[in-house]
């Protein structure tokens, strides 16, 4: 469903997927403020620069520059590449990457707060869900199907499971937006149940 972040009510949407196209006019300041409010109010935005293919070490792509300019007025938290044990890798499927049309792009997510004093996961006031994910793997291209369910774009790489993996990654992202750190908590559930009734 297409959304115009300058006009539409964003609060209704759990996830925005925002592909970056270099050279398009930058969204206005008002739009970015709305996006900022959306992220702070519990929204979840996936920015996809779709430039994993063009990335060379040390050189920023036009898409990356575009995104950087766009986000310059938004309160973006500190980001890090998705760690191996991040809840994003286990919200539904157990996965180790978020491939799309490309496989080599890095996926960035908000830095996890340091573990609490009791070592039982991070100490945080609320559920502490990252409001932003930045990828360059062109996820939507891998998910896109035609009317008969056939894929629209060829994937780069040889693994036949790549398309399945990109779908699993997408499902995990959606689950993350909906259930937050639910799966991270579940590590503690057996212990919690054990403690009950003692």
């Amino acid at each position, binding site marked *: 469903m297409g959304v115009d972040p300058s006009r539409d*009510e964003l*609060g*209704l949407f*759990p996830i925005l997927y925002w592909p970056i196209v270099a050279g398009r006019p930058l969204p206005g300041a008002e739009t970015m403020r709305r996006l900022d*409010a959306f992220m702070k*109010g*519990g*929204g979840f935005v996936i920015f996809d620069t779709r430039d994993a293919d063009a990335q060379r070490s040390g050189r920023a792509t036009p898409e990356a520059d575009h995104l950087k300019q766009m986000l310059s007025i938004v309160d973006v938290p500190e980001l890090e590449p998705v760690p191996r044990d991040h809840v994003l890798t*286990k*919200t*539904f*499927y*157990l*996965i180790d990457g978020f491939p799309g049309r490309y496989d080599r792009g890095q996926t960035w997510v908000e830095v996890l707060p340091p573990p609490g004093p009791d070592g039982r996961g991070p100490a*945080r*006031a*609320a*559920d502490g*869900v990252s409001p932003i994910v930045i990828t360059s793997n062109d996820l939507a291209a891998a998910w896109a199907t035609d009317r008969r369910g056939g894929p629209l774009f060829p994937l780069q790489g040889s693994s036949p499971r790549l398309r399945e993996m990109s779908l*699993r990654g997408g499902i995990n992202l*959606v*689950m993350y937006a*909906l*259930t*937050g*750190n*639910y*799966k991270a*908590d*579940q590590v503690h*559930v057996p212990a*919690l*149940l054990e403690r*009950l*009734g003692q």
Partner: protein
Amino acid sequence: MYSLSFAPLVPVWLLAGLALLVLVAAGAALALQRGRGVLRAFALLALLFALGDPSLVREAREPGKDVVAVVIDRSGSNRLSDRAEQTARARAMLERQLASIPQIEPRFVEVGDGDGANDGTRLFEALNATLADVPAERVAGALFITDGIVHDMPAAAQALGLKAPLHALVTGRDAEIDRRVTLIDTPRFGIVGKTVNIRLKVDEKNGTGTGRLTVRRDGEVLIERAIRTGEPLELSVRVDRGGPNLIEIEADALSNELTTANNRAVVTIEGVRDKLRVLLVSGEPHAGERTWRNLLKSDANIDLVHFTILRPPEKQDGTPINELSLIAFPVRDLFQTKIKEFDLIIFDRYANTTILPMVYFENIVRYVREGGALMVAAGPEFSGTGTTLSRTPLAAVLPAQPDGRTIEEAYKARITDRGKRHPVTRDLAGSEVDPPRWGEWLRLISARASEGDVVMSGPGDRPLLITSREGKGRVGLFLSDHAWLWARGYREGGPHIDLLRRLSHWLMKEPSLEEEALRAATRGRTVEIERQTLGDNPGAVTITSPSGAARSLPLALDRPGLFSARLQATELGLHRLQSDQLVAFVSVGSDNPREFTEVLSDPARLRAVAESVSGSSRRIGREAGSDVDLPRIVPVRSGTRLAGGDWIGLRITDSGIIRGVSLSPLFLGLGGLALILGALIAGWLGEGGTRSWRRRAQA
């Protein structure tokens, strides 16, 4: 008053010398001239006298009165039994006796109970205040009419600053009977659901040695047992709820007991809640799920156990299990073996596919009726027929049944009239205006409420949020899953945190959120009474004071659902308040007022301090009747004994105040001159005249 004073005009040695000469001359005159020498001697003496310059002094003196302070104990303990009457009689008799001693100015001062503070009886403070403007030398004495129980007795007699005797006249009698509860060791805090130990002792004088002890918590009897007095004992009491738990310990009364106020002790134990355990079961991942998680995880008092049905059993595909991050839903653990450990179970858009066998729903129904709490946040699945919870055994405790319609339109949730009185929904930010100042929701599950209180409503006055009580437990039914729109700031959002937090804590029996409640607090002597009710008129509240006097106080409407009243307490101690079936206790002053912990009258208590200033302490109350034997009051000018078997002394100093002095010189001026000259002339005439008269007779 007159007196003579001399101010010699010449030095004293000269005057003495002249006096000697005068004496010799006068003696010679008398010896030589006999009778006629008298005038000459008189003239010489008068001259000498004049040199001494005598003058008449007149002092304008006001007779000074010595002050006697009479401090009368009107505190609670000295009103017990017939002590008040004894006190009144003693005062009347003292007034008469003191009035008959002219040198004395009596000052009477009455001392009541300290103002709200747990000060006890403070007679010495009053004594100092009364004598503050009197020099210590002019204090003739201090008299106390008291039961002997004084709480501000100076530790050292010097601190008294009194140079006159202090006499204590003690009311009451030796054969007093009293039993009292003494707390030895009491906890201040306790974890809700756990027991705490209270150590105490029942002491008595002239009692029976055995008694019955009754322990009540918030008015409800917990323990009743026989005890031996004088022996320490330990009670185990369960802390029942968060906030203050008033434990009242009462020993049965002896007959003819002085007071039953000290047969009762109150222990306030602050109930601290252990972590509340909430089980959240989300039927599917959905946009509102994180709102619940954020709310429950940010609450430091809550341990959240969350399950989301990520994949219902019918949706199986070929994905190997080791590639899925799924675990089995431990239904047996949750809904059978450990169900009692949860304080609240929330079903959030839970559709009953085949996951939960019916027997578990029956468990939940039993859990609720036995004191648990259940909340259902209904989504579209609730209005269907296939998987709705309303077609499970759970329906027995649900306060509404869906009628099959789901209303999908933008609407503003409204607080119903009943909701405005309900602590869960009262004063939600934005509800002050109509329509409320908050964002719209977009879905409502249409249902017919069959019981409970509809506190929020949606379009067409359909129930939106229903709270109800089921057996000992509570149920909340939210007929929309759109509270998350407030959280996400949709159309300015709304007070979702307040609403959901209050709702969940009401379900878990947070005392401050009860719909029907009677609360009282004290500020000094003022008792502030608050009555929370969903009804229209809670009627009056009955207040029973420690002495047993009951009075009825009307309640005035404060805000919707809140009525209040104020009372100026005249007595210290535990007041019992009742409104309908609700009972509350409030302690004016402190829980166990000092004034009533010790009530046995005893002259010995004041003896040491009284005798340190040569005073005395004695009982004036007779063993029978309310007559008093007052000792005679004797003004004592000198001597060290200031008390005896049937008398008490007051130190009289006869001091006075001189207002003015006038001097009238006797020999200076015309009068003195006339006298001296007169005497000289008379002498001269006498001596000369006699000679001429003789001469004439010879001729």
